[in-house]
C-alpha cells in the first residue's frame, strides 16, 4: 500500500533518525514515544507516526536542528505532508484521491451536482404547493430526502470504512503482541484511546496548550476543536431525534423551537459556527512553518464547508416561515450534500486515522515490548 517512498517520507525518515538519536522531545507527545520503540522507519511506520501527530508544534520550536540548521528538522510540517499523502494513498475509490489535491474543486463539483439534483425536485413540488408554510417537505419531499441522503450516507460510510481498513492494514497492522495477550489489553487500550480522542489530550502537550508560534501557547485551538467536534455530534443527534419523531411517533416537521431536535440542532449549529470560524482565524494566523500547505488548504476547505452548513442551517431555522425558505433549503441541502460527499476525500478523515493511530499507540503501550 504505502510502500512508495516519497520525498516527504524520505525527509520524515531522516528526521526520525535524528530525533531518535536526540530524544529530548519524548515527553511532548506519543509520536516520540512510539518512535523510540523503533530502530528503522519504514513507510508504514512513518504513516503511523504522521497520523499520530496532532500538529501541536512544540517540537519545532524546541529543536536545535530546525532550520537554519543543516539537518533541517521540522517534524510537524514534514509529518503533516506525510499525513496528507497517506489520506491519498488510502482513499477509496483510488481515483477520488485527486480531491485531496484540489479540495475546492471537489467541493464545487459536489455542490453543483447536489444543487442540480435538488433544484428540479423543489421546483416540481413547489408548483403543486398551495400555500407558503414552514414545511420543508413541501419543497423536498421526505422520501426524496431520505433516499438521497441514505444513498449518499451509505456511500460515505463505505468509503470511509474501506479507507480505515486500508490504513489499519498498513500502518496499524494488528500487533502480534496484542493478539496473544488477549482482550484485556485491547479493552484497556480502546478505553484510553477513546479518552485521548474525546479530550484531545495531545493538543496540549504535557498539560499545556499547543503553540501557534514560538512561546505562544494558547488553549483556543483545543476549545474551538471541541466546539466543532461536539457541535457536529449535537447536529447528528438532532437529526437522529428528528428521525425518531418522524418514524416512531409519526410527528411531522416542522418542530417547535423548544423540541428536542431543534434545541440539539441549534446548540450544535452554534458550536459549528463558533468552532470552525475560530479555527479558520487561528489557522490563518498560525506559523506557516508548522503545517504543510496541502494540509492547510484541506483544513480551510473543510472548516469553510462546516461553517456554511451551520450558517445556512441556522438561517433556515430563523427564516423557515418566510418566502426565501425554499431557495435557502435547496442551498443548505446542497451544501450538506457536498460536505457529506467530500467527507472521505478531505480533512474529515484526519479524525478517522488519528483515532486509529491513537488506538494502536495505546495498545502498544499497554503491551510492553518484551524483546528489548
Amino acid at each position, binding site marked *: 500500500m504505502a510502500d512508495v517512498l516519497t520525498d516527504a517520507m524520505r525527509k520524515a525518515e531522516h528526521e526520525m533518525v535524528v530525533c531518535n*538519536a536526540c530524544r529530548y522531545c519524548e515527553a511532548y507527545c506519543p509520536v516520540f514515544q512510539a518512535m523510540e520503540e523503533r530502530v528503522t522507519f519504514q513507510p508504514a511506520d512513518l504513516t503511523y507516526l504522521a497520523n499520530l501527530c496532532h500538529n501541536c508544534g512544540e517540537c519545532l520550536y524546541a529543536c*536545535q536542528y530546525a532550520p537554519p540548521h543543516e539537518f533541517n528538522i521540522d517534524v510537524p510540517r514534514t509529518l503533516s505532508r506525510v499525513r496528507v499523502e497517506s489520506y491519498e494513498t488510502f482513499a477509496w475509490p483510488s481515483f477520488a484521491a485527486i480531491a485531496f489535491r484540489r479540495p475546492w474543486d471537489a467541493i464545487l463539483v459536489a455542490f453543483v451536482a447536489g444543487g442540480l439534483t435538488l433544484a428540479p425536485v423543489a421546483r416540481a413540488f413547489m408548483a403543486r404547493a398551495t400555500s407558503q408554510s414552514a414545511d420543508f417537505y413541501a419543497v423536498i419531499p421526505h422520501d426524496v430526502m431520505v433516499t438521497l441522503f441514505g444513498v449518499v450516507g451509505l456511500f460515505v460510510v463505505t468509503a470511509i470504512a474501506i479507507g480505515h481498513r486500508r490504513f489499519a492494514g498498513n500502518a496499524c497492522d494488528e500487533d502480534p503482541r496484542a493478539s496473544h495477550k488477549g482482550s484485556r489489553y485491547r479493552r484497556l487500550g480502546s478505553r484510553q484511546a477513546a479518552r485521548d480522542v474525546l479530550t484531545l489530550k495531545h493538543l496540549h502537550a504535557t498539560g499545556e496548550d499547543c503553540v501557534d508560534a514560538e512561546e505562544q501557547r494558547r488553549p483556543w485551538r483545543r476549545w474551538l476543536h471541541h466546539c466543532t467536534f461536539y457541535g457536529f455530534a449535537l447536529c447528528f443527534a438532532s437529526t437522529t431525534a428528528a428521525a425518531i419523531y418522524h418514524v416512531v411517533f409519526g410527528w411531522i416537521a416542522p418542530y417547535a423551537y423548544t423540541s428536542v431536535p431543534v434545541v440539539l440542532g441549534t446548540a450544535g449549529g452554534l458550536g459549528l459556527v463558533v468552532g470552525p470560524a475560530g479555527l479558520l482565524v487561528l489557522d490563518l494566523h498560525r506559523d506557516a512553518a508548522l503545517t504543510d500547505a496541502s494540509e492547510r488548504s484541506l483544513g480551510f476547505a473543510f472548516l469553510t464547508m462546516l461553517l456554511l452548513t451551520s450558517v445556512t442551517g441556522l438561517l433556515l431555522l430563523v427564516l423557515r416561515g418566510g418566502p426565501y425558505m425554499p431557495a435557502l433549503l435547496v442551498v443548505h441541502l446542497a451544501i450538506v450534500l457536498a460536505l457529506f460527499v467530500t467527507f472521505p476525500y478531505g480533512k474529515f478523515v484526519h479524525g478517522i486515522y488519528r483515532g486509529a493511530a491513537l488506538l494502536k499507540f495505546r495498545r502498544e503501550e499497554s503491551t510492553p515490548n518484551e524483546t528489548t
Partner: protein
Amino acid sequence: MHTAPTDVLTDAYPEDEFMADLLRVTGGATDQTLARMMIRASADLPRRMNRFGVRFQPSIRGTLHLGRTNAFFLGGGKALMNSAYAAAERSDVRIVYEADVVGLCIRDGRFESAELKTPHGTEAITARTVVLAAGGFESNLEWLAEIWGDAANNFIVRGTPYNTGTVLRLMLDAGAEPVGDPSQCHAVAIDARAPKFDGGIVTRLDSVPLGIVVNKHGDRFYDEGEDYWPKRYAIWGRLVAQQPDQIAYSIVDSKAIGRFMPSVFPPIVANSIRELASTLGVPAGTLAATIERFNAAVRPGTFDHQTLDDCRTEGLIPNKTHWAQRLDTPPFHAYPLRPGITFTYLGVRVDERARVVLKGGLAENIFAAGEIMAGNILGRGYVAGVGMTIGTVFGEIAGRESRDTAIRQARHG
C-alpha cells in the same frame, strides 16, 4: 541536589554526595565555598525556573538513566533558551541579536561601557553594572590551535559557533584573575561526519564498548571496555585527539547491532575486514592482524552489556577488560570518530556574589555567570548537568547582585 523525590527527580541526591562527586571528578580543582553554595541553591532550582516558563521532563523516562541526579529540560536546551528569552521580553528587556561585544571599557577596576559590533555598525553601551555571560572559547579555532597545535583543525565543536571567548580574553587582558585549567577542554568522541559546529547531542556514538577502536594505522590504542560508556565517553575525546590526524574508527560486528542507541549517521558496512579496511582507508594488513590478535586474546565469559561482565582479553596491549567478544560475524559496521569539544575550563575568578576578581582587587560592578566562570567550580572533569546548574545558580546571583548594585549607585548619584 534534592533530599526527597520530586516531580522531575527520583530518590534523593544529598549535598555531600554531590560535593563528593565534584571533588572526585575535579581532583580538588574546585572552590569549595562556591561549590557548596551552588549545590544548596540547586535544591529548589526546578521550581524557581518554572516561574520563568522553563519546564522539565517527568522523572520516569530520560536518557542515560540519570533520573536520580539529573532533571532534564522538556524539549532540551533550545526550549530552555526560548523560555528565558520570552520571560526577558515580557519584562521589557531589550535584546540585540547578531551583536558581538568587541571591547570593554574598564577603568580603575570599574566597568564603564561595552563596545558592540552589529550589522548596523558599532555602538557603545554604558551601564552602572554588567553581567558577563559570554561562555568559553571552544568555537575559537585559533585559540584552540594555540594549545593543541594543528590537531585543533580536526576538532569538531559540538555547540554554537559563537563561543569565541572574546569577552573572556578581554577580561583576562584587563587583569581578571584566571581560573580553571587553561590547556584543557571537555571533549568526547563523536561521529566524524558531524557538522563542524552545532551537531549537538545526536552526533554522539555509543558503540565503542561493544567492539574495538583503531586509529588510522589500524592499531588499537585504549581499553574500550574500561567502564560503562556514560562514565568513559568523556575521556575518548582526548584519546582520539592524541591519535594521528585525530581520527579513529569504532568497529563492531553484527552481534552488537541493536545493542547501542541508534546513531544519526549510517554505519559503514562491509562483509569482510579487508573490504572494511579499504572503505575506511586503513591499511588492510594491519587491521586484519589487529583483529586476529584481538580475537585470539578474547577469554571465554558470559556477555552482558548491562553489567561489568567477565568478557575480557588477555595478553594484549592494551587489553579490553569488559564486553570483549570476537569480531567474527559479518557484516562488520564501522563509525569514524573525531574529538568533539563541548566546553573549555578557563574562566574568570568570582566571589560569592559573582563579582569578578581582578588582580588589583574585586571589581565592584562586573559580575559573571555561566561557562565564563564555571571553572571556579569545575576546574577540570565533568559531572552530568553541572554546567547548567552553575549557569542557572550564578545567573540568579549575578542578576540579583548587579540589580542591587545598580540601584545603590543610582541612589548615591
